[in-house]
């Protein structure tokens, strides 16, 4: 049963992600991505990581995909995008080579066989409980840092998408030929403006 489920999920995820990567249509790509993410959460459930699976569903399919959808609309990108892919061969060769390499690494005998678990799930706890136990003791600091990171991301998003970025104080876009005087004037007027 698990075997079947694994292969089912694995094949499907692979195919969906391939669509994401290869499709010319943003909409298809995004849909396939979202679907892939959902299926990955299936894998998580299979791996006794129920909480992670839930987070996966909530964050990815909920938050991330929503963001992407808004972005897609903003960029008006639901049409086919012409991409000049000059060297497909190189790309696939590289991808293949790295895949082979990773496979070799992962299939190599792992020396950690039989290593004692450092943070086993607490006895008799459900997965979310166990996760919570570790997360709020050992990993409290990363958790807080992650909170800071999300704050940073929020601020960044606000700033970058904000109106204030529409004009720039840092440059004078000089398109026509300019002579030194005008520039000095520009620099000077600015100075005066400050006072």
């Amino acid at each position, binding site marked *: 049963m698990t075997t079947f489920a694994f292969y089912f999920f694995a094949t499907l995820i692979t195919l969906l992600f391939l669509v994401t990567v290869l499709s010319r249509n943003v909409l298809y790509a995004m849909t396939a991505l979202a679907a892939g993410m959902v299926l990955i959460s299936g894998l998580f459930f299979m791996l006794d990581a129920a909480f992670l699976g839930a987070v996966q569903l909530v964050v990815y399919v909920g938050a991330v995909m929503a963001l992407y959808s808004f972005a897609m609309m903003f960029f008006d990108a639901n049409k086919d995008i012409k991409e000049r892919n000059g060297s497909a061969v190189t790309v696939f060769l590289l991808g293949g080579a790295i895949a082979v390499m990773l496979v070799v*690494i992962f299939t190599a005998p792992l020396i950690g066989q039989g290593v004692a678990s450092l943070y086993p799930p607490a006895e008799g*706890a459900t997965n979310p409980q166990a996760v919570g136990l570790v997360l709020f003791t050992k990993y409290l600091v*990363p958790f807080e*840092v992650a909170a800071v990171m999300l704050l*940073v991301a929020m601020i960044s998003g606000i700033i970058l998408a904000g109106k204030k970025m529409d004009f720039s104080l840092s440059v004078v876009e000089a398109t026509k030929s300019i002579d030194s005087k005008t520039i000095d004037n520009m620099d000077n007027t600015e100075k005066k403006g*400050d006072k």
Partner: protein
Amino acid sequence: MLEPISVSLESLNLITLSPMLIAIGGALLILLIDLFKDNLDKTMYVMLTMLILFIDIGATFSLNINERGFFDLMLVDGISVVSQLIILVTSLLFIPLALTASNNRFHEYSYPEYFALFLFMVAGLQFMVSTDNLILIFVGLETASLSLYTLIAMHNTKGSHEAAIKYFTMGAMAAGFFLMGSVVVYATTGSVELYEVAKILQSQGVDGLSSIIAPLGGAVLMLVAIGFKVSLFPFHMWTPDVYEGSSAPMAGYMSIVPKIAMIVVAMRFFGIYINLNIEAVSYLIIIVSVITMTLSNMMALVQKDVKRMLAYSSISHAGFVMAALALGTTKANSSIFLYYGLFMFTNLGAFAMLWISRHKAKRFHGRYDHPYEKFSGMISAHPIAAVIMAIFMLSLSGIPPFSVFWGKLYLISSVVDFSAATGESKYIVLAIIMVLNSAVAAYYYLKLIVYMFLKPPVNELNLVYTNKSLALATVIGFLVMATILSIFYVQPLMEFVTYLVSSSGY
């Protein structure tokens, strides 16, 4: 039912968190102030940030070395303290560069959030160096990186956007490789804490080809991520573009701070391999660093823009430093910090000199802000500025008695010592390659001096120091003095660094 967890506050050793908490708290304070009061002048924020950094430095100094805290997650050892100090001091020198002559000259400083993000970044980097848990390293790294991308983009020029997106995208890919590296490490040892990893590898042994594949693969994947941040070939490609696109002080800052943080991570991570005598990793690092310093030197040679040249030069300096990292001796590791400790004054100074002459319009070249021609004949127009810039260039090229020379000296010495101690003459070859690279590098630093001192002014658009202000002059003055008088503080610095590095066993 689950047992309640009881944790004593002392065992958490919260003091280990204090420096980062100060930075984060400071950032939040700035955000709060911004929330309640608009239109405060940037000078207020600059000073506030400096004060916070100052307290941060104090907190860092008061840390006890070789302590763990918070369920052994935090690790305050020598290299953590010394790298935090480098990060903080550089930040302290970087922030006042915001005080340009007129208030609204540059976009980023019009945001109070700029300073908050900056402090978040500092905190992220501090986390990154104060732990040996890959998870916290990753989260710290991402916190710092995301802040940094924004800080770059906030300069708000076309170049800065291009720079930010390039940096961001490559950073995302590098993050992927960091994760895969962590996966390999985790898969191999069942732990994401480096000290545990080291223990397990030590006890299991890594003999034979089959058992080394995974650790070696992990090292390769990690090296991609580290190489990206430290800018090693061929993961360096963002560097020149990002430096060119971002503001000059930011470029100078980037050439030191994120790198030193990542180097600490590399030291922790590769230290495991080196302690296990896996020579392949040393060779790997050395080969990459040699390629890095050589190619970036060659590319720097043909640049037309000073800032871009400095970008390539900082790549080559990073390659230089990485070579020492591969040795794993105490001296080599201390020399890295000594090097950056001395390099930061000079490099930041050089970028600051570019900064004060930054114009809003590109007056000398369609694309570049600081083409060499801009500095032509500078000695007659601005003799003092020319001399200062020349001193920075001489220092960068490793001419004694300026600061970088001492770093270089100690660093090469560590390579030579290693060779002599192990009897392996190939490390002498490494030393020779390193010095020959210095000689090549001297050419492009010299080129700027040649333009400043030996060429007549060719452009009627004379160089104006629009950004010059007392604050900037003070910072640059300090940097120049630190560069010139380095001979007098190298001894205590060396003593301090060596003490810190050796006390935690690196």
